[in-house]
């Protein structure tokens, strides 16, 4: 990375993302041979020329109505999908919380799943050993940690998943509308933890519809509208304008 780049955590450079919409997708060879010129293909352009520079230590909220491309942008940042045009650079270890509990194995105990889930985020065994107690404490699962995950209630499941993801110690944290986790007590705890991460200089990008929470946590907001950046700036101002139009 060039020296000028190093103050940025995420650089989004003129990114376009087009999804192919195939009606009656030919999954099998037979279908492919019979309908090989008949499949209707449409394109849906989700992102149209996004430019974003996110500095280290910034807390950025992506807001916008459904279908404006927020989640797609987040997925592009994590490298789950790749842009059709343009490029995205990230600088530093990255964790994404797009969906909690991705890859939990139902028959394994909570503790085993901590190891498995944390390793998906790229941690080594020693690093997980050092964190496992923090994770269990944060989840408040107590003795249930030794029970198979399939016996958990959905709240317990979410608490465990969130505890793992938030204790991974990444430099960049991408969060997609998952803070509606657990009861009020646990939610408060999550926000407190995010606040703590923010203060320790982590970069956080968060997609959320709960504007009040966003106002408290983020110092910058980006309003996406139909795949383009409509407004970018301090959270209060952007939200104000957003509410004028969409409220």
């Amino acid at each position: 990375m060039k020296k000028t780049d190093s103050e940025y955590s995420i650089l989004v450079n003129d990114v376009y993302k087009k999804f192919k919409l195939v009606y009656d997708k030919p999954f099998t060879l037979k279908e492919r041979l019979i309908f090989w010129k008949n499949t209707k293909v449409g394109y849906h352009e989700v992102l149209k020329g996004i430019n974003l520079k996110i500095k280290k230590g910034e807390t950025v909220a992506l807001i916008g109505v459904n279908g404006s491309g927020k989640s797609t942008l987040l997925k592009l940042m994590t490298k789950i999908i790749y842009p059709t045009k343009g490029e995205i650079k990230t600088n530093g270890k990255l964790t994404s919380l797009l969906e909690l509990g991705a890859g939990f194995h139902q028959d394994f105990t909570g503790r085993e799943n901590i190891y498995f889930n944390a390793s998906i985020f790229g941690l080594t065994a020693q690093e997980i050993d050092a964190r496992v107690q923090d994770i269990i404490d944060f989840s408040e699962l107590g003795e249930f940690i030794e029970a198979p995950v399939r016996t958990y209630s959905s709240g317990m499941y979410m608490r465990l998943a969130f505890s793992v993801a938030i204790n991974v110690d990444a430099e960049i944290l991408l969060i997609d509308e998952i803070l509606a986790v657990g009861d009020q007590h646990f939610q408060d705890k999550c926000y407190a933890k995010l606040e703590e991460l923010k203060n320790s200089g982590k970069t956080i990008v968060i997609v959320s519809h709960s504007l009040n929470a966003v106002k408290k946590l983020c110092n910058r907001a980006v309003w996406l509208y139909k795949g383009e950046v409509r407004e970018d700036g301090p959270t209060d101002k952007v939200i104000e304008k957003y509410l004028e139009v969409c409220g």
Partner: protein
Amino acid sequence: MFKEIYQYRQLLKSNVRKEIRGKYKGSFLGVLWSFVNPLLMTLVYAIVFPFLLRNSQDHYTTFIVMAILPWNWFTSSIAQGTNTILVNGGIIKKVYFPRAILPISIVVSGLVNFLISCLIIGIFLICSGIGFSVYIAFLPIIILIQFMLQLGIILITSSVDVYVRDAEYIINFFISLLFYATPVLYSLDMFPARFKFFLQLNPMATIISSYRDIFYYQQLPNFTLLAYVFCLSAFILFIGIKIFNKLEKGFAEEL
């Protein structure tokens, strides 16, 4: 790519553990099934085939068990490996990690099983009175070649299977075909030289014969053939890495 896989080595480790333990969770015998299965297969063949073939092999059960166990590693790796990206679609769509971890952990978990299976082969060698020889020292080389071959194949099949779901069925058909073209139940020496040449184009034929050379015949494996299979496997692995790297970018969208 290799650096990243090293960085995610813990994921590889826990995924291998999941493959080995998760598969049989809920069954009484658990992991033991991965050994009981090939042994039962051996038993069936050992009863049926001496009736069908006028075979002149001494210790026929020992003769086939050392071929069935590596063959079992081959088929289970290919069958599970081809599926692995589809089966793990849920987490591929949600988390980023080097996708190659999935096929690699299939082959590695198969390897762990096979290494334990080697103890079974040892037991058969002792009980039949054949015993051991120094040629067992070549075992790691043969295992390495088989490992490369399998990994190369499933890097290709697993990524293609995402786009064309038929791959799975085509592969399964070819595996059952290949079983008869591979000297598992018979020896290649039963064929005339001209025919034998064609059978030896199949890399698994040489691999299985080599296991038999070091365990059963207690002689050096055929290094010319083994070198050919090594080059072929390295080539398939190289192509596999290329194809996988190219196709993996579309996985999350295609699944």
